[in-house]
């Protein structure tokens, strides 16, 4: 096995037992980036020099027998995460020359844990998109078939992990932007509970929905990354002072006795039949392993996309108002077409005369969607569903039909509207394209999600 193919856990074991150095590990990742990035376009910036410096520093600490949770591990950051002294673009031409003066909280935490920041990944500009095609730096390609989209908006982050260009990567999830690309690229993607991970120093999309998460090769790795990033932050007033679990505990506890809900609204028309069959087989697996499968209903689901496509653009239009080209970045002329579309839509739904009919109405529907989940979690510990109603689509297929593109988020936006955490895990392939399973749970139940996901992963090495 090549070093760049290792998981976080395997890398740490190898580094500690001096089988290889962080410099060697980092060089293998850099080599893979050089080889594949020309076609996959997963990275906007590669921090070769800085990464090798960090790797050497990590090697020195390791030789002194110092320990840190991610010491010497090459990690890529979505280009929405501010990195001091390293260009941060949000994949938009508005910020193609922006060099942050400070690190965001997650960036700082990763560095403090010893991670090597290897580069900044491509994404839909401002995280607006479900396919990765809206980047002003060109689309990212799916490593399983380069004619297909990798899913978005955290396209490059998902691809960088799937194509072994790094060991793990970070992402943001406002309506599915981690879970969808994870499912399209056959990697594990976590959207934590809203507020579990600080948003400080990450370019905002829709502030009441943005969740900060990551991509890994295994569920176990996802838990160990959350151990580093989770926690309250005085610089983000939406991070509640709720105890941070030891996420790597209980991974092997199995699913016996867990009550798992299957929401009928997530298996209705519009869902690809082959995906439906595959997810049902996964449900059977969990039942066989001792979980109690419970049929549930989330009746407001069919209104979720409409609700989301009012609240999200409203917040987008407000957040993007700050980009005036005066203090940093370029002028508003540089916004791409999707950003303009959302700014226009949001400005309209917030404007005088329309606020009540749209924004206020959507906030009320949001209450109903949240209530659906509150009611469901009185009966079940977690919920299983598909991540996407379709398989990855061909590049270019939906670019001229924004509404069709928006509808691909149907199974993921509900978690953002209600704040709950969601984990996407690979469950196998259909037509040689990856398929993911979504595991949802009540607020701050990440530990249970890891336990459920890990149980499938351990028992089905190659999916179902």
């Amino acid at each position, binding site marked *: 096995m090549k070093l760049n193919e290792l998981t976080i856990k395997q890398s740490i074991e190898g580094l500690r037992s001096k089988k290889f150095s962080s410099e060697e590990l980092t060089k293998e990742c850099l080599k893979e980036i050089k080889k594949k990035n020309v076609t996959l376009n997963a990275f906007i910036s590669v921090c070769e020099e800085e990464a090798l410096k960090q790797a050497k520093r990590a090697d020195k600490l390791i030789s002194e027998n110092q320990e840190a949770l991610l010491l010497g591990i090459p990690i890529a950051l979505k280009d929405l995460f501010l990195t001091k002294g390293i260009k941060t673009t949000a994949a938009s031409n508005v910020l193609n020359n922006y060099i942050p003066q400070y690190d965001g909280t997650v960036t700082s935490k990763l560095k403090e844990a010893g991670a090597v920041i290897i580069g900044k990944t491509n994404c839909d500009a401002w995280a607006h998109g479900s396919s990765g095609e809206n980047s002003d730096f060109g689309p990212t390609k799916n490593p399983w078939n380069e004619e297909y989209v990798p899913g978005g908006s955290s396209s490059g982050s998902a691809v960088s992990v799937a194509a072994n260009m790094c060991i793990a990567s970070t992402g943001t999830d406002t309506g599915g932007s981690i879970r969808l690309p994870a499912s399209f690229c056959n990697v594990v993607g976590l959207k934590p509970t809203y507020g579990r991970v600080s948003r400080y120093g990450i370019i905002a999309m829709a502030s009441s929905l943005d969740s900060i998460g990551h991509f890994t090769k295994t569920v176990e790795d996802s838990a160990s990354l959350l151990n580093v990033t989770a926690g309250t932050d005085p610089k983000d007033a939406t991070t509640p002072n709720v105890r941070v679990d030891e996420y790597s505990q209980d991974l092997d506890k199995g699913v016996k006795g867990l009550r798992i809900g299957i929401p009928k609204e997530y298996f209705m028309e519009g869902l690809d039949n082959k995906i439906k069959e595959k997810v049902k087989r996964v449900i059977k697996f969990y039942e066989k392993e001792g979980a109690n499968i419970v049929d549930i209903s989330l009746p407001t689901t069919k209104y979720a996309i409409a609700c989301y496509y*009012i609240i999200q653009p409203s917040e987008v239009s407000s957040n993007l108002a700050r980009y005036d080209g005066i203090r940093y970045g370029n002028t508003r002329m540089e916004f791409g077409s999707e950003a303009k579309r959302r700014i*226009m839509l949001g400005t309209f739904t917030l404007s005088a005369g329309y606020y009540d009919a749209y924004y206020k109405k959507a906030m009320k529907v949001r209450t109903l969607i949240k209530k659906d989940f509150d009611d469901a979690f009185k009966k079940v510990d977690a919920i299983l569903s598909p991540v996407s109603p379709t398989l990855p689509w061909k590049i270019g297929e939906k670019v001229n039909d924004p509404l069709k593109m928006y509808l691909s988020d149907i199974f993921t936006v509900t978690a953002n509207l209600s704040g709950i955490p969601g984990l996407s895990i690979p469950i196998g392939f259909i037509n040689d394209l990856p398929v993911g399973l979504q595991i949802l749970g009540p607020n701050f139940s990440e530990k249970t999600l890891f336990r459920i996901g890990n149980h499938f992963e351990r028992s089905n090495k190659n999916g179902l």
Partner: protein
Amino acid sequence: MKINVKHVAKLANLDLKENEFDELEKQLSLILSYIENLQELNTEDIEETSQITGLKNITREDKTEPSLSQEEVLSNTKSKENGLFKVKAIFEEQ
């Protein structure tokens, strides 16, 4: 739903080209007609959810902390003078 794209673009401070107006009007009308399905739901007595944390009035102690230097703050601007951001005049001279 008819949307006055010129007016909205002005509110949003976006300088759009003539062909963009037509396309946006078409696309936004389509999206808005989809969004209309929310009107089917009766939400008369439902409270609004603007954020889900339940947190209120989170403040910090009113104490100064180290912050960026003036030089750092100005490091990304294309237009500065005497350690300040230089912008176009807002008020016209008499």
